């Protein structure tokens, strides 16, 4: 399911003195089965952009095409359910959407809204809880008794249970410890690789962009400043830093080495790439193991 933005503008509170244009002239294609990261500093329009993916927001002008479905300013608010089932959306701090008595019921809530039987939905809930790495005995617990990280995973399970084709995640790892972050990101990668979900990830972690995404969209003041492969976008360290954005630590380290006389054809994004690029440049005796 390809997603295409064509000349999309979006204005909040149009026609009032509080109106503010959040998106200007967005043209973007997100390919089927791709892993796209969206970066940009706070207020650059990332969240507004992704809310167009399942018609929570409709463009003020322009067209968003999601698979077969075209969303224009005139699109009726009814009959959007099939679209919302296909595009699963995990908002920032998704644990705030939990409301049911038990974890099982909360995960089953989405699928049942899209017409799944209670029985199938319960099965699905157990399956999804396992997928997000939580033990089955949590199923009958109240979601409000869980820890923050567990609640986050239950909420993500609730979205995954809708069996979407596109998964949108808005800073899914915000506020989690490093282990929690690795687990969530590992889970997302698995879904992308094994179930071929199209993943769209908003993040401030450049390491995540470098290790998981195959495309990156840089947003600035409601426009798209740059689109490309992470390895291309992260070459221009100064350009990104001017936009209050960083580069992966490895890349920054390499850029500093470059100033001290090392040479890189392309700045590396990961430690492995860095090591490979550094090895031939180091003096021989420094590389060879000391036997004596």
């Amino acid at each position, binding site marked *: 399911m390809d997603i295409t933005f064509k000349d999309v503008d979006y204005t909040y*509170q149009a026609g009032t003195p509080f109106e503010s244009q959040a998106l200007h002239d967005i043209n973007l294609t997100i390919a089927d089965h791709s892993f796209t990261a969206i970066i940009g500093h706070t207020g650059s329009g990332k969240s507004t952009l992704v809310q167009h993916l399942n018609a929570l927001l409709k463009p003020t002008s322009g067209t968003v095409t999601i698979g077969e479905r075209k969303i224009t300013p005139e699109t009726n608010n*009814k009959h959007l359910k099939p679209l*919302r089932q296909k595009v699963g959306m995990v908002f920032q701090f998704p644990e*705030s*959407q*939990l*409301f049911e008595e038990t974890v099982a019921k909360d995960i089953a809530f989405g699928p049942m*809204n899209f017409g799944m039987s209670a029985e199938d939905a319960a099965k699905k809930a157990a399956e999804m809880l396992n997928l997000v790495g939580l033990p089955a005995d949590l199923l009958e617990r109240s979601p409000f008794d869980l820890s923050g990280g567990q609640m986050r995973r239950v909420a993500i399970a609730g*979205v995954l249970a809708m069996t979407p084709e596109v998964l949108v995640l808005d800073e899914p790892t915000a506020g989690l410890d490093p282990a929690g972050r690795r687990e969530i990101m590992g889970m997302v990668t698995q879904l992308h690789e094994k179930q071929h979900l199209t993943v769209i990830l908003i993040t401030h972690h450049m390491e995540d962009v470098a290790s998981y995404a195959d495309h990156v969209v840089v947003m600035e003041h409601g426009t798209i400043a740059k689109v490309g492969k992470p390895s291309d976008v992260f070459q221009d360290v100064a350009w990104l830093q001017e936009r209050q954005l960083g580069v992966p630590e490895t890349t920054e380290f390499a850029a500093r080495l470059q100033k001290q006389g090392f040479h890189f054809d392309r700045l590396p994004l990961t430690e492995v790439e860095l090591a490979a690029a550094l090895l031939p440049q180091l003096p021989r005796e420094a590389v060879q193991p000391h036997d004596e």
Partner: protein
Amino acid sequence: MMNKLLLGRFIPGHSLVHRLDPRSKLLLSFYYIGIIFLANNWQTYLVLFLFTILAVRLSEIKMSFFIRGVRPLIWLILFTVLLQVFFTRGGTTYWSWGPIVLSQFGIVNGIYIFMRFVLIIFMSTLLTLTTPPLSLADAIEAILKPLRVVHFPVYEVALMLSIALRFVPTLMDETEKIMNAQRARGVDFGEGNLFQQMRAVVPLLIPLFVSSFNRAEDLATAMEARGYQGGEGRSKYRVLVWHAIDSWSVVGFAILTVILIWLRA
């Protein structure tokens, strides 16, 4: 949905009305609602109308905002007006059907009632459009202060009011966010029969309650951490100052009152 909730929202500005002391604005608005009942003929309504238009012009806010303030109440107004029109007897009777009559007095009364509603709404909209909610809370606190003599908890009420007003936008954002999250999970708000609509509210209300309680606790902790110990002896960050324009506004209202008494039938 946020566009609809604009009614009565503060619009920043530096007009004469914006700069008035919130205490005088609040008291004069109440006073205005009182003296509207002095009007009982077309001359007095005309004077009130012109006075209100003048106040609106002085605020430098577009007329459309005031008209928008009338819109949500239009059915209530029309209902009241129609009751007046069809059940008042007197003067020439144009048409009648059982207890329902269309009389000269009825029509005139209907127009007056309509005017009264519109003028009151305009003036109260003017108050909320030109006064930041927190200033309004300060004004209420200042006005309630004498009640301390009878051990009325003025500071606590004022604090509750300020906190409530402060969190209205936060709560609105939160509502929007949770509605979106549940919409993404297939909830249709405002669709289906009454029972379905009521059921759709549950996934919205429970998370809102949970987050409000959490926020209240956080806020209490934050206030204690910064040494809050109740209002007694507390100084103010925003000090209310009575200016010359406040006195002139009072004079303006006094003149209006005199004219109304002089012109009324």
